[in-house]
């Protein structure tokens, strides 16, 4: 059964920023994308680089040599170690999307009032009734 964990208070992660959290013994990277949240294992599937510290870029593509098409700003994550790219929405790699990816976890935002009812686990900090929280399902 997947468990749900409170990992951060809404507002703790700056707009288009990220935060690493250890949940149930695992390092999770949580990303803000204009107020939407995504969570990936904070470990590059290549050599284990900390994805949370990766540079965020747009998706760069091309229709023909010398032309550059930019889309989805901030949605690609480049591992700080070797530069492999991952889609923060799905964790899929650019280079080998079917076989290589960072594990993605479901993220929801829940009001504190609901959280105190359970069955959520807040390992990191106490939950206040008045705030909203980022919850990751693992």
């Amino acid at each position: 059964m997947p468990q749900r964990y409170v990992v951060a208070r809404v507002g703790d992660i700056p707009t288009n920023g990220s935060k690493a959290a250890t949940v149930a013994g695992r390092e999770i990277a949580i990303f803000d994308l204009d107020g939407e949240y995504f969570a990936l294992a904070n470990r590059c599937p290549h050599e284990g680089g900390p994805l949370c510290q990766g540079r965020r870029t747009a998706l760069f593509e091309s229709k023909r040599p010398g032309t550059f098409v930019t889309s989805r700003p901030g949605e690609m994550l480049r591992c700080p170690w070797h530069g492999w790219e991952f889609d923060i929405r799905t964790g899929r790699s650019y280079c080998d999307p079917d076989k290589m990816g960072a594990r993605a976890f479901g993220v929801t935002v829940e009001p504190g009032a609901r959280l105190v009812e359970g069955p959520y686990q807040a390992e990191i900090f106490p939950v206040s009734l008045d705030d909203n929280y980022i919850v990751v399902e693992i």
Partner: protein
Amino acid sequence: MTVSGAIDCDVHPALANTDALLPYLDEYWREMVAIRTVENLDLGSYPPAVPLAGRPDWRPQRGKPGSDLALLQRDALDAFGTRFAICNTLYGGPYLPNDDFAAALARAMNDWTTKEWLDRDPRLRASIVIAPENPELAVDEINRVAPDRRFVQIMVLAAGERPLGKRSYWPIYRAAEKHGLPIGIHAGSSFRHPPTSLGWGSYYLEDYVAHAQSFQSQLLSLVAEGVFVEFPLLKVVLIESGITWLPAFLWRFDKTWRGIRTETPWVDRPPTQIVRDHVRLTLQPVDEPPEQARFERLLDHIGSEDMILFSTDYPHWQFDGGDVLPEGLSPQHRRKIMIDNPLQTYPRLAETRQEAVT
């Protein structure tokens, strides 16, 4: 050992000297040949006297190895049951620094090839020789010669002035694609640059072994610059490149591409896949692993059975007797290398082959 109906993708008719081109030059260039001391423009890597330049039992009594049609017919065509052989004449003329002279000599070489070789044996096919450093003149020459369907490829040297992926060369590839002609990149250098990226070595040994790096650099350039994205139908054949370096090179290429592919976003899939789709390699001189059956493992590492094309490299001394194929090849691979892969690579062969049957 071989398969009947083989297609030999690299034989070398030899041009005796620049004077042999005089009948194919106009008066102005005939005069320039006479006064500019260009009677010998052989490429520097394989002077006719070095052993590699001619197998002892294939050397004529007089003249350069590969200069005698009757010997080529006997030793290269009949001996291997060859259905078609692609003539790649190597000569430095098209690499003269003077664009117009280079283009005139390339043009004369193509007419010489037609008259002295193609017209004299129906099994012979040829590569169009061009002077690539002036792409506009090169395209004129391709358009002039391409209607003769016995020309099945366009040939350039592996080491010229610049990396072949550069956009200034693209008019050549556009013409190649239009006419259904692969680009054959043949071993050899115009020696505008040292044979190694470190500078000049001292020995032929260094030149020959290091030449694989030139082929690697050309493959890198063609893929990275997006030539196969711009020209999706284009095929490139590496001729006398050796083969064993390819898998390790491709592993390195793919690995590095993963991290910095945003530099070249048109390279939108692993380079290995692009190379498998667009690049072919001729067999001889095969840098064959010493143990039998290792060649099959090499093909396995390359990950494709479609890439190797049969060649004898006649009259160069790359093997003895009839031992032209690596040991331990399965019958199916033998057939692919000797017939199917060449037919897939050179569409003009298939078309003339059908005509011959009907």
